[in-house]
């Protein structure tokens, strides 16, 4: 029983990473109805920018905040320059665009900062949380930041005018335009926000997995899995999904014999598929009724 509890807690701790990533994924999905395969690379790139700022002498928090701003602007620029022209193109072309962005970001990061792993500092330190052996202060910090982020997003969407406008633009673009909302800029804003959230995810994850251009590959997948599990229309679901995926991954690794690290991912993904077949809109997602 104790092993079980331990693994669950450890799973929640790693799940915070996936939860944060999943938030960014859902954020963009809400804005543009697509999964952005380059999201992980954008987060990685932002983390490198933060690292570079710190190399140039900035303290952690100034670098963190500046990176958030740069990521926000960067996300908007990428959307305006590269994806707005594709607005009327078929879905497949969008996906090709994400793949192209992925390749570009990965390659440029590799060239600029090379592929050797780097240390990334954690603002929370890495000692045991409340003396516990299971969760480090950093992991507790991750969970905390993710929850704070979720709350902020909740308030943003529920209680601000621009949050309302974004929700409207995402749910019924044509009706949104008919109340005077510039849906095109709402999409750009969605990208900017997702980019910043991704940056936060990256900066939280880097201390654990170490900073290098390929660090986000598996994590993005878990993020997708978590977002889909929780329901692509629900930020809350994304966070819950993240924790669930973390826990599941850990339990599978502990209790099913023969499952080494390599199989954890496929099994987590298999779980997702099973959930999707049973409840296609995810745990907390809204079922989409198709009008004939």
């Amino acid at each position: 029983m104790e092993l079980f509890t331990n693994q669950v807690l450890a799973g929640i701790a790693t799940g915070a990473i996936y939860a944060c990533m999943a938030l960014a994924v859902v954020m963009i999905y809400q804005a543009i109805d697509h999964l952005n395969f380059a999201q992980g690379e954008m987060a990685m790139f932002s983390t490198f920018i933060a690292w570079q700022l710190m190399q140039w002498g900035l303290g952690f928090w100034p670098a963190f905040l500046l990176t958030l701003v740069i990521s926000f602007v960067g996300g908007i620029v990428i959307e305006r320059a590269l994806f707005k022209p594709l607005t009327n193109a078929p879905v497949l072309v969008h996906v090709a665009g994400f793949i192209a962005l992925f390749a570009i970001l990965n390659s440029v990061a590799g060239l600029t900062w090379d592929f050797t792993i780097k240390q990334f500092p954690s603002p929370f330190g890495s000692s045991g949380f409340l003396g516990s052996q299971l969760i480090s202060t950093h992991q507790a910090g991750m969970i905390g930041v993710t929850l704070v982020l979720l709350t902020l997003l909740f308030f943003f969407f529920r209680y601000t005018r621009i949050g309302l406008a974004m929700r409207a633009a995402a749910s019924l673009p044509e009706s949104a335009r008919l109340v005077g909302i510039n849906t095109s800029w709402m999409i750009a804003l969605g990208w900017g926000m997702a980019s910043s959230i991704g940056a936060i995810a990256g900066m939280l994850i880097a201390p654990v997995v170490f900073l290098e251009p390929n660090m986000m590959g598996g994590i993005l997948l878990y993020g997708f899995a978590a977002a889909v599990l929780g329901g692509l229309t629900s930020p809350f679901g994304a966070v819950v999904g993240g924790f669930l995926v973390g826990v599941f991954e850990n339990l599978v690794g502990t209790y099913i014999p023969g499952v080494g690290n390599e199989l954890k991912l496929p099994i987590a993904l298999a779980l997702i598929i099973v959930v999707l077949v049973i409840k296609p809109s995810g745990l907390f997602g809204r079922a989409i009724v198709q009008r004939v």
Partner: protein
Amino acid sequence: MSTVQDSVSQTAAGAAASKKSMTIGTIATIVVLALLLITPLFVKNFIIFQMTMWLIYAIAILALNILTGGSGQFSLGQSAFYAVGAYTAGIMMEYMGVNYALTLPAAGIICFLFGFLFGFPALRLSGVYLALATFALAVAMPQLLKLGVFEHWTGGVQGLVITKPDAPFGLKMSQDMWLYYFTLFVCLVIYVLAINLLRSRSGRALMAIRDNPIAASAMGVDLPMYKTLAFGVSAAFTGIAGALGAIVVQFVAPDSFTIQLAIAIFLGMVVGGVGWLPGSLVGSAFIVFVPNVAESISKGLSGAVFGVLLFAVIFLVPHGARQIAYIIEALFQRKSKS
């Protein structure tokens, strides 16, 4: 409203283009065919090898075209079927002494079953969810191939080395050249099969499903049957491509069949033009040759160059090579009118 727009505009353009396109299209086909037949006689073995791989990936892209262009189902997991086909060929040749030519239908049948089975859970998924599920399949495959439990057959992480077959009947050509013509033959057979499939009632049923699943099922099209069949057929062709790939490369290993391959096949379909079978050749050329071009432009930034070139393609011709074909047709029409 948009479906009406699309199909109507396509009908109008299509009707106008069809008469002239018979001539342009036929000429183009003859030229391409001729080049495919003659070129190997004049180039080095290594180029022949590359051309063979080009044809093999074209088959894989064509298979995806049947699935996505034909039945509208998304797949980022074709590398899994390719891998199964490749390993089928490898295992049959090395452990069972089966003749290489026979491994192709075997790979086709096994992959058909595999694809058909995958089609069942896939029925309940669509769009982004199906993309993710197939993505998961592709990611899982290399790991499954490395599993200790299969190592006896798969050769584990190291994979299997495959003996390259000689030209039959003592023909005086290099192994590479023989394999090229063999592949070309298979390619043409599959191409003809695919065209016939898409033109048949089944093909029309598939396209009805692609365009409007609800209407299609209301008209009596057995959605689950056709959708799973589409997966099966697509997987079968991909598996045959995989088997050919294994024979030509003489080697199979789990890490040859990663998600990168699935993404490449997907990109090949987009660049070639979704649903346009001849585009498979163009798309294949893109994924086989452009990465080399990118690397020669800048070794360190080859990925970035590739990405930029890909963006260029999707900005200029979002509908892929098919769009270029239409433009050329339109130009010829205007010239013949004046």
